[in-house]
């Protein structure tokens, strides 16, 4: 299963990088790329460097089990710690694979609702990249209790604290944007403010567990559970729900209910904190993770009851979100092209966008093109209308170079996925599945890439 999702993530990462590098609209130089796109670009690079580690590790584990290798078996000279190293070399960047795109969502929402471009575009981009690099130097802080040498542990403590610096820069840039702007407190912005509050608490408990003595105390207790739920739910899920309220009109053409949205936010915010804050205290009292129950005399009952009540409130908030989505799909107010009066290009086309995205490719003159050209965007023309073409440009300046044809629909990707899935699943039962499974996979890929005799291919 993990290998499945890794394959799909790697594929998406490659697509995003090439799209951002080569397919930008003319005039969209590097400094005019929206922060959301920068964030997705950094995420894609993290995926490409991190995911292979876990693919290698899971392959070695399967080999241990199916064909009797001993990578992780100390009795035969293997090393069980190797698994933890490989896993967390992927596992820590994984957290930033989730968090960095969320920062992109935050930047988009803040620019639209503070009514001004985000303050400090350059420091924000640089701190995204810095976080991307630093995230590969942190993995051992998941392993402080495995008896590693002291020097190594100190290094990883320092780098774990260091990563708070670029993250702090981002928070201050966003706060400055809100400070200087005229904030409009619609639901997406509320979720972003909730993100600030919760993520900063999670960041602070993160600095605490970055230190070896504290981590040794609270390792495998509910303190750690509280910490990573503050970071992941605060850092990723809150911006994500905000992003749903923000882009739902673009994707469906209809607005989500603002009234239900406010309820959704406050229930989620209160429910989340009631559910997870007590876990800090439970962890300090020594309650271990991953144990299915506890004795009454430990005195953990009341806080656990409170936490469960909070979890139910959080659950209700998600039911409200679902309700809001379902009712708004048919009865929501019509959105129009640009309901929030935002500045980036996705709001220049219709809602929902036509299959061809833009009838004429826009020419970009500014970071927020729609704020720079209030009347109509300048456009680039010259693409064919009867075959699928797009513009391919230079990496830094997005100077148009080529009219590039792009593939027609095809059933072969589905058939290839079925063939790959079948051979993975069968490989649980016998390693020979990989050998025999490669035949249908090869057939599917051959069909996929069969040349169609397009004019371009013949030249």
């Amino acid at each position, binding site marked *: 299963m993990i290998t499945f999702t890794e394959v799909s993530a790697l594929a*998406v990462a490659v697509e995003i990088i090439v799209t951002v590098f080569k397919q930008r609209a003319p005039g969209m130089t590097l400094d005019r790329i929206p922060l959301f796109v920068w964030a997705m670009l950094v995420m894609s690079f993290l995926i490409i460097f991190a995911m292979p580690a876990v693919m290698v590790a899971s392959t070695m584990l399967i080999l241990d089990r199916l064909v009797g290798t001993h990578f992780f078996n100390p009795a035969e000279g293997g090393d069980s710690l190797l698994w933890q190293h490989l896993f967390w070399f992927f596992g820590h960047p994984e957290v930033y694979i989730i968090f960095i795109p969320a920062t992109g969502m935050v930047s988009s929402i803040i620019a639209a609702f503070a009514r001004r471009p985000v303050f400090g575009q350059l420091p924000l981009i640089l701190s995204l990249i810095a976080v991307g690099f630093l995230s590969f130097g942190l993995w051992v802080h998941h392993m402080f209790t495995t008896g590693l040498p002291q020097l190594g542990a100190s290094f990883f403590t320092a780098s774990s604290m260091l990563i708070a610096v670029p993250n702090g820069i981002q928070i201050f840039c966003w706060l400055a944007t809100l400070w200087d702007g005229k904030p409009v407190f619609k639901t997406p912005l509320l979720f972003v403010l909730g993100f600030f509050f919760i993520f900063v608490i999670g960041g602070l408990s993160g600095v605490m567990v970055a230190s070896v003595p504290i981590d040794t105390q609270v390792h495998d207790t509910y303190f750690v559970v509280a910490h990573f739920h503050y970071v992941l739910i605060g850092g990723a899920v809150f911006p994500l729900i905000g992003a749903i309220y923000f882009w739902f009109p673009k994707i469906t053409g209809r607005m989500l209910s603002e009234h239900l949205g406010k309820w959704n936010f406050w229930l989620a915010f209160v429910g989340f904190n009631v559910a997870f804050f007590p876990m800090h205290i439970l962890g300090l009292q020594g309650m271990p993770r991953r144990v299915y129950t506890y004795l009454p005399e430990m005195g953990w009952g009341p806080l656990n009851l409170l936490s469960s009540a909070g979890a139910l409130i959080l659950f209700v908030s998600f039911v409200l979100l679902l309700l809001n989505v379902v009712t708004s799909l048919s009865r929501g107010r019509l959105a129009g092209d640009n309901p929030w009066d935002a500045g980036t290009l996705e709001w220049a086309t219709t809602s929902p966008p036509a299959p061809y995205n833009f009838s004429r490719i826009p020419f970009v003159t500014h970071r927020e093109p729609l704020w720079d050209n209030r009347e109509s965007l300048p456009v680039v023309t010259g693409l064919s209308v009867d*075959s699928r073409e797009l513009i391919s440009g230079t990496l830094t300046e997005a100077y*148009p170079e080529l009219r590039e044809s792009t593939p027609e629909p095809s059933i072969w990707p589905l058939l290839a996925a079925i063939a790959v899935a079948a051979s*993975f699943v069968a490989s*649980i039962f016998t390693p020979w599945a990989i050998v025999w499974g490669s035949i249908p996979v090869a057939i599917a890929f051959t069909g996929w890439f069969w040349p169609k005799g397009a004019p371009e291919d013949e030249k």
Partner: protein
Amino acid sequence: MTISDATAHDDVRDTSLSDAELHTRLTRTWRTGSSWIERLSSVDHKVVGRRYIITAFVFLCLGGLSAVAMRLQLARPEAKLLGPDLYNQLFTMHGTTMMFLFAVPVMEAFAVYLVPLMVGTRNIAFPRLNAFSYWVFLFGGVFLWVSFMLKIGPDAGWFAYVPSPARNTRRENASMSGPR
């Protein structure tokens, strides 16, 4: 061929057409058909992105329900709602689902939908690979949850530290699945 290159073949360019004519012809070129086979063949980043987002949220619901079940079990000391074995499977499924089937895919999903729109292009690069990646993600997620339903779900935590998964026979195979 460069943009400034004169029309070498008899293809029609968007330069000279009226807005309505342009809309008709571009729609004919780019649309995803309405038959089943055409829908399954779609390579439109918006169609694939929408499927990705919806699928990821279905997995969020499954991961969320497993969290609710665990919180109900932990609400009181010595509760008997879930046994230790089911509890182990649930926290493993919760972590695995939230990390691998919800959080990462949903971020990719938003990228797939929005990045081509934000950079002003007509489709994502390698659109067929994009369709392939969605199907592989869907099958992987369904496979994990089917093995949970069959009561052979993984139970060693989302990070599957050795040696415990190495001892269990078939369970972590479902989680790791497949040498590559």
